[in-house]
């Protein structure tokens, strides 16, 4: 059974990412309130929850693109919010991130997109860069598309090319932002398999942010469910899928109404329809 959110992640202990009592506000609105999350090294950890709960924001906080208002975010021992600009860029070279849109550089062909991190962070000779790029593209099934421009790729192919770029430097941490969104079933199956295979083969740590329950549960070692600015449940996929916690159950089983209301807060129907006033 999924536990209450106490961040007692049983596979933790050798955490790669450790978020402690973190609060993040957008203006007056709290996105996260005293959240504690542990991401164990070498595992696939999923962050799940309804749209608009700040899952992508959490990845940006881990990557240092946003700073929390309170709390600590440790990535491999580095306290991300306290790092200077240059130190942060150094730490980021050990991270890879797959953006929801792919975010390929539109003025570079696929080959150059994948080669980009290698050219920037290494002094490898050109023939070695070529070998690495083709290996990464082979891993995502796009070796034959290396000459194509991003505008010539389908959505699924662009996502896979971006994945090849994200793992080009063999990072210690790979973050996936909604990797399954907008994919056809075939592409989705490929990406699902790739995340697990790459994690196991390369031995890195993976964080998958998604609201696709079945796909994410099939590859995750541990799942956090976030909603309303807090962790509402956590556990192994089986524990979270069979959770008795009402909010977790509503999300995992896709129930339209429950503790998280279907309707956006509004005046009563009677007041709106019979009151005669336009809001």
């Amino acid at each position, binding site marked *: 059974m999924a536990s209450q959110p106490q961040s007692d992640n049983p596979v933790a202990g050798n955490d790669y990412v450790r978020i402690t009592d973190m609060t993040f506000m957008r203006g007056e609105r709290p996105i996260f309130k005293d959240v504690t999350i542990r991401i164990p090294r070498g595992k696939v950890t999923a962050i799940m929850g309804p749209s608009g709960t700040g899952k992508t924001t959490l990845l*940006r906080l881990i*990557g240092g*693109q946003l700073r929390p208002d309170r709390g600590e975010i440790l990535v491999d021992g580095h306290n991300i919010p306290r790092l200077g*600009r240059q130190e942060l*860029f*150094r*730490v*980021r*070279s050990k*991270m*890879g*991130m797959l*953006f*929801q*849109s792919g*975010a*390929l*550089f*539109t003025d570079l062909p696929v080959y150059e997109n994948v080669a*980009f*991190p290698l050219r*920037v*962070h290494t002094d490898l000779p050109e023939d070695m860069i070529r070998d690495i790029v083709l290996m990464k593209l082979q891993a995502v099934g796009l070796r034959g598309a290396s000459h194509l421009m991003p505008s010539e790729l389908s959505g699924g192919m662009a996502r896979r090319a*971006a994945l090849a*770029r994200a793992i080009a430097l063999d990072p210690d941490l790979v973050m996936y932002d909604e990797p399954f969104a907008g994919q056809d079933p075939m592409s989705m199956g490929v990406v699902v398999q790739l995340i697990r295979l790459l994690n196991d083969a390369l031995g890195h740590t993976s964080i998958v942010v998604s609201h696709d329950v079945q796909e994410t549960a099939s590859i995750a070692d541990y799942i956090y469910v976030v909603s309303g600015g807090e962790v509402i449940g956590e556990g192994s996929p089986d524990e979270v899928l069979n959770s008795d916690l009402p909010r977790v159950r509503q999300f995992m089983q896709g129930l339209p109404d429950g503790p998280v209301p279907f309707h956006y807060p509004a005046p009563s129907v009677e007041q709106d329809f019979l009151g005669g006033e336009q809001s």
Partner: protein
Amino acid sequence: MIDRIAALGSKGLETLQALGRSGMFLFHALWALPNVRVNGPLLVRQIFSVGVLSLIIILVSGVFIGMVLALQGYNILTRYGSEQALGQMVALTLLRELGPVVTALLFAGRAGSALTAEIGLMKATEQLASMEMIGVDPLRRIISPRFWAGFYCLPTLAVIFSAVGVLGAYAVGVVWLGVDGGSFWSNMQNSVEWGEDVMNGVIKSLVFGIVVTWIAVFQGYDTVPTSEGISRATTRTVVYASLAVLGLDFILTAVMFGEL
């Protein structure tokens, strides 16, 4: 009344914050020793995109403005029988004022708007964010070469503008209207001072180059990453840059030629 004062104060604070942000933005973009191996090719590419691709509009505008100046100048100068001063009038007008100012306005419309839209679109499609996550500072990689390209290109374009303007004036004044060619060139040569006229014009366009490119890259980087946001940022670039050029032109002219 109080609400209006509060709104005015809030707007003032927002403007100050934006100015502060743009200052820090430029500082971070430029505060580093240039890496020739990495930044050289990026700069050359931007010089092509910002400068070479602006050449057509600069050449065509320069020729026409020179031709119009010659026509107007000829009509006025013949009333006083001093049409031989046409070359002097055209050269001084172009070198001191029209060259730097019109080039900067055209540059803001052609290259400035393109820079803002390009950077804004890179932000909207998360390309800047992905670059950050790869461990590359977009201020150094994207902003810095574009800024330096604008800084180098605008004075060069202004000089080209003035040169083709003089040729356009020669075509109308000497070839078409029959002003003496020797007087046209010798009066120009005698009256144009290297330091006071040519270099002051170049200094003006250097200042315009910094301001126009700074506004363009900052508006792109600071844009709200939506289609409407990019559209507004592009418009702001052209409006702010044009107003800044005209305002600064007055100040610089007053300092250079107004004996302030």
